[in-house]
């Protein structure tokens, strides 16, 4: 891999707390939860009826390719809102995007239009007599096409669909394009929405709780599905410094693996999941003893949390005791393909703010070898942190972020004062 270093200069989020990273972070740090009864569809007949829905009425409207036609695909809508925020946050909205690319990670993008298409087809509705949804808009790839068209991105662009690990993978893949010199900047992240097909599936697995999400707790009973979008603006360090951009964090490395264990269940011994974490550490060139925080997948299903704890112990050995571990699933639900991007944003905010939001709803009965951020969260300096995700098909992904404080003064031949943490950069900008 070439030596271009990759930094995060913009963040954008849409979650059950509304549009905006500020709202997202405030919800996490205050211990709020978007848990509610499903409104999106009639949940009668299902074992559980909980979810965390985006407040759609409050979202800015988005048109297709700058025209007057409204965007009809909901995941692409919130992806666009989050991407607007990330691009704007980075100061890149409206700038030349010929060398900017995009990697989207999603599981069920366009699923509501696919389902509408399927419903008409199921009834044998003749073409011409009823209006089927547009066939391209009904495809998963539409979210990528929507973002590429919206910002007229000229760089590499692709879409990853590794279920609930999709957008963590997307961040790593986007970073690779910059490292390889194929793009100066990349939008990375993804969006997923709550729809009956997803709820029905996870409900049939008994993965959806009927109470609340208690990640890692012995009394855990699963998650509820969340809706959301997370977008990160990644740039080469050189590109970011050249334009005086504020730097939230550095993408130090990432790792992927396949558990080769089961199509839907995480592995019994956590070894397949640990491989992704180890590869992430190797890719970053960071010793595991230097990791301060892990934003866990933490779905609160009986299988996942056991596998994940074993994976952490395998990857970090005895050093695991010194690492803070938390999950935001109780706050925002399991946002499926978008979970990785939103959790990456939470991780980066932990790096920036030196605060780890609480893992909610614990009864206190959990593995004592790990330092879970319980109750009201944890004040802690975070220099290096990992965000990790696991998905159907044995997909595992982990991405490692470093604080801008850890960017060496000699990096790219530039002085340390030019690698400013976000707060300092803001002050500098404010003072011209």
């Amino acid at each position: 891999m070439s030596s271009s270093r990759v930094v995060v200069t913009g963040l954008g989020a849409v979650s059950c707390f509304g549009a905006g990273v500020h709202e997202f972070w405030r919800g996490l740090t205050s211990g709020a939860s978007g848990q509610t009864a499903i409104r999106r569809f009639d949940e009668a007949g299902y074992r559980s009826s909980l979810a965390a829905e985006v407040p759609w009425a409050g979202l800015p409207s988005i048109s297709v390719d700058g025209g007057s036609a409204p965007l009809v695909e909901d995941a692409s809508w919130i992806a666009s809102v989050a991407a607007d925020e990330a691009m704007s946050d980075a100061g890149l909205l409206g700038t030349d995007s010929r060398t900017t690319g995009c990697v989207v990670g999603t599981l069920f993008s366009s699923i509501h239009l696919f389902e509408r298409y399927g419903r008409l087809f199921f009834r044998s509705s003749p073409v011409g007599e009823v209006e089927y949804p547009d066939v391209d808009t009904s495809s998963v790839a539409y979210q990528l096409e929507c973002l590429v068209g919206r910002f007229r991105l000229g760089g590499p662009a692709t879409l990853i669909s590794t279920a609930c690990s999709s957008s963590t993978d997307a961040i790593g893949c986007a970073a690779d394009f910059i490292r390889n010199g194929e793009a100066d900047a990349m939008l990375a992240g993804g969006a997923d929405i709550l729809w009956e097909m997803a709820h029905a599936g996870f409900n049939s697995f008994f993965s959806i709780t009927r109470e609340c999400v208690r990640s890692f707790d012995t009394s855990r009973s699963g998650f509820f599905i969340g809706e959301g979008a997370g977008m990160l603006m990644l740039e080469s360090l050189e590109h970011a410094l050249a334009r005086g951009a504020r730097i939230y964090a550095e993408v130090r490395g990432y790792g992927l693996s396949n558990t080769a264990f089961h199509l839907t269940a995480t592995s019994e011994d956590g070894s397949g999941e640990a491989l992704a974490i180890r590869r992430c550490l190797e890719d970053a060139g960071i010793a595991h003893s230097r990791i301060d925080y892990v934003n866990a997948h933490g779905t609160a299903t009986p299988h996942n949390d056991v596998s994940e704890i074993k994976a952490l112990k395998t990857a970090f050995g005895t050093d695991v005791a010194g690492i803070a571990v938390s999950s935001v699933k109780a706050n925002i639900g399991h946002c499926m393909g978008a979970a990785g991007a939103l959790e990456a944003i939470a991780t980066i905010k932990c790096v920036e703010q030196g605060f780890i939001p609480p893992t909610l709803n614990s009864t206190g009965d959990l593995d004592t070898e790990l330092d879970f951020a319980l109750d009201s969260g944890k004040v802690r300096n975070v220099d290096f942190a990992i965000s990790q995700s696991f998905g159907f098909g044995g997909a595992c992904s982990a991405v490692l972020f470093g604080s801008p404080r850890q960017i060496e003064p000699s990096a790219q031949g530039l002085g340390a004062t030019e690698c400013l943490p976000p707060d300092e950069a803001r002050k500098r900008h404010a003072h011209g």
Partner: protein
Amino acid sequence: MKLGSDTLMADLFATPVCLTGIGAITPFASGWQEVFRLASASGATFAPWGTDLDPPHAGARLGLVRDYPKARYCSERQLRLMDRAMALSVVASGMAFEDAHISDDDRIGSGERIGTITASMRGEWATRYRFAMPMLGNDVGVINPAHFSMVAPSAVCGQIALSFGLRGWSTALSSGEISGMHALARGASLVAAGRAPIVVVCVYEVFSKITLHQIKARWRKYGRCNLLQSDLNSDVPIEGACAFILESAESAARRGVDSYALLGAMTHGYLHEDRPESYRAVVSRHLGKSPETGAACDFVMSGLGGAKGNSRGDEQGLVTSLFEEYPEASELRARPLFGDGAAQSVMFQVASAAQMLKNQRVEPAFMSDARSGITSGERPRAAIATQLTDRGAYGLISIGRA
């Protein structure tokens, strides 16, 4: 043609990735050598589009896979637990491993070093619809959880990993018709970066009634109103799976296996305008990536053929820009021989180019009438495969003689 130089492409490719195995399941044959033999002889034939599948017109043809050697790689029990996309992909991947001389014993103990990448344009549609049918019929009480486990595109990737014990870097791509190109690029980058010495890349498409309904809708949208009315195979939608084994030169040398070809620079993105300068910019970007592509290109293996043409981009424009750089190169086309394989198409293009580079012989059946300068007696050194989709997504891959 200027084919006098004996310069080895291996010396020209900065970070070569070897293509050491190919597995293919098509409607007309299984096994890459048989597939290529039939394609080269223009011997691929497709059955009529059955009336039970609502044909667009009486003469329509469709490329359904009827039979393939399932039992060679999967037990009956395993097959019962798989959907069609999984079964096709596992078998194609098994064929690719076999073709690359990677045995079960070889994989045992080295599974952590073998990566898995899958891609499809619409591979999950059939399973998603099957899972959703109880909901569509308002009978959620009969939802089948086993069907839900297959609705994610990564399920196919996971099944390949599970079947062959692969725990290396792994991902699944679903970026539409260009997905195959993206899968090759990601797989090659994992090998080139040293993350996996071996990666299996499998691209697949499967049909069901709703899939065919959507294919027809898509063709109507893009003005391919002569759907399946021409005599060309180009316009026959086909299902199947094609898998490659990509390998580092070091790994291939250590194992003592021959490569079909070397994969070099890959470029992909989206075109926003159909203008000559846009095409030239893409070509410049590709050729500027590595010196090897500037050294030789004896033929362009384009994705053109049949009624393919689109509103947002015209691949002919892209190919024409390449010929401005390589005025003596020929244009070859795989689509008229293999059918319209959606995301799989690029796999057939690259596989065919690689086979011809290995054979040191250009098969006349692939030659486009428009530019057929190269003759079958000449020894091709390098090629570029191109793709440009209806949605404006483009990709180019350089392929060199091993």
